């Protein structure tokens, strides 16, 4: 997974803002990548491009050696469904559905999973994240940390190669922060690429690679 000369610019009232400036970066499995940086520096923009939720203005994006810089919306959805899992600061759980139902949602479009298996797969994923006694709880009945673990379970459910977490601990207390970073670290060791955007210095202790975003320029800080 590789980005080459990625630029992203917005035109706001005939003012051109360049949010990403010549970003070059390569990601390898079994690694935990952390991206830090000031607010508004372009971190979310970058990971949204990586997650195919946004498109770069120019540059090349290679996934599995294939250039996927300009794909149709459906082709992007296919890649997202199979290879990318997202975790957000605000969890993005459906508050009317139980933890189990939330985690099952991505399984509906996984052709490799039979209808009868969905529940079992989701249950074991929640168990793996330590939520075996919270299966039928709705998000409102869970703590912030638990909610985020449900979101992680949902991100992992279709066994994606890439996990993208934008500020995953933004709404959590210290104990939960550490828990989440540990979990993400463990996940990365299952032959996955984990990319985490965070303001939280704790991430430094867990990541394999540390990058810093500064006004749209991405710089490797530590290996």
């Amino acid at each position, binding site marked *: 997974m590789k980005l080459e000369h990625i630029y992203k610019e917005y035109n706001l009232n005939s003012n051109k803002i360049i949010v990403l400036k010549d970003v070059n970066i390569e990601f390898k499995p079994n690694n935990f990548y952390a991206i830090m940086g000031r607010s508004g520096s372009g971190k979310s923009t970058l990971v949204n491009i990586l997650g195919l939720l946004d498109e770069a203005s120019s540059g090349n994006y290679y996934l599995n050696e294939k250039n996927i810089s300009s794909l149709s919306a459906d082709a992007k959805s296919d890649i997202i469904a199979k290879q990318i899992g997202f975790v957000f600061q605000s969890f*993005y759980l459906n508050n009317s559905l139980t933890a189990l139902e939330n985690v099952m949602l991505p399984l509906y479009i996984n052709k490799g999973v039979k209808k009868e298996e969905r529940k079992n797969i989701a249950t074991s994923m929640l168990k793996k994240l330590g939520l075996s006694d919270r299966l039928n709880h709705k998000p409102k009945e869970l703590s912030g940390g638990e909610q985020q673990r449900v979101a992680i379970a949902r991100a992992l459910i279709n066994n994606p190669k890439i996990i993208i977490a934008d500020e995953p601990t933004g709404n959590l207390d210290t104990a939960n922060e550490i828990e989440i970073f540990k979990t993400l670290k463990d996940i990365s060791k299952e032959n996955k690429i984990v990319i985490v955007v965070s303001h939280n210095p704790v991430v430094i202790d867990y990541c394999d690679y540390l990058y810093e975003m500064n006004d749209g320029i991405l710089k490797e800080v530590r290996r």
Partner: protein
Amino acid sequence: MKITDILSLSYLNIKTSKFKAFIYGLILFFFFLLLGLLFSGSKTISSFADRYTNTDFHYKVAMVDIGDAKREDVIKEIESLNIPHISKIFSSNIDIFTTTKISNVENDINGIVELYGNYQGIEYVLDSGRDIEEAGEAVCASSFYPGLLSHVNDKSEMIDMKTKVGKDIFIKYTQYKSFFNGETIDLNTYNVPLKVVGTFDWEKSLTGSNACYVAEETFDEIIKTSRPVYENAEMEEDKLKDLDILVLVDKYENLPIVLDELQKNGYETSLYYKLDLTPVVVIEKVVTYLSISIFIGSVFIVYQFIKNTYRENVNQIKLYKFIGYKKKLITLIFIVQYSLLTFISFITASIILPIIRLIVSNIFYNNPNLSALEIKLSYMGVNLYLIFVTLAIIIIFFRFMSKKNIEKWS
């Protein structure tokens, strides 16, 4: 993707906005119900009018003034005109029906009955047995009130004439001779057996109970032999002089044609029973306009509703997008979600409509003045509305899921 999966995803979506879904369903339910009631009401009234115009033959009778001419001559003249749609010419209104005594061997039928000829244009709704096929046969009202008063609505005392199908009844009448000085003498008493071959639903035919239709030729014979015999021809003409000749038409809608033909040939005509159908026409118009307003108005409401809920569902759409659902699938989930709610409202209203009908029918049935009004059900408005709203939902969602709108949200 399997339809069951789409359905369960739509169901999860409904769960996501339970309250709004309920309100949406409720609003549509009322529209469905309202349209069902409007169309049913309109059908009830027009079929009632139709029943008047076609099953009560009095509405299909044109009266012809004979002036100074001789009655027999006028009848012959009209017959020779060969006007289409005329099924019978009665010499006067006393020939239209006759009232006689009625009895049977079992002796449970004893009373009086109105007899009508089974001419073309006289319609009744058969509810058992068969139609009249030959002379001597009769089709009677399904109930018989065994007293001297007919048209009494005490249903508990009535005899079920369906049990008499295939059996004989006897009608008894006396022909008498009438003299200038006012005296009468009995000439002959007739006891005519009639075979009951069927019964008709008298409540749907606007005759009373205690009525029978008799084979044409038998009826003609009964009329001939029951008519009083006058002392001489002048007296007969004098007795009948103010009575018009009656012309029975096969169908109500052909009445104007026949009237027109008669007038063209110089006859002065009038109607036996006049029926003012303006209220029916007005009601039908009101229903049409009201329905159209409901269609247009409710599509606007549905549109606004979906639009508002939809804005709230943007989070759900974003969620679907980042777990890899394609746009087509998301659109489909929403369309199925709203179609499902619409369908549930449709089914609920469709179940409630016959219940309302039953209740209203019961009220009407127990009211003697209204018992002839049969409450009809019409699902046409409801069905049209289902198709209409479903199409509207599809169009609205395809519009909303357009690229421009999607970009606005991300």
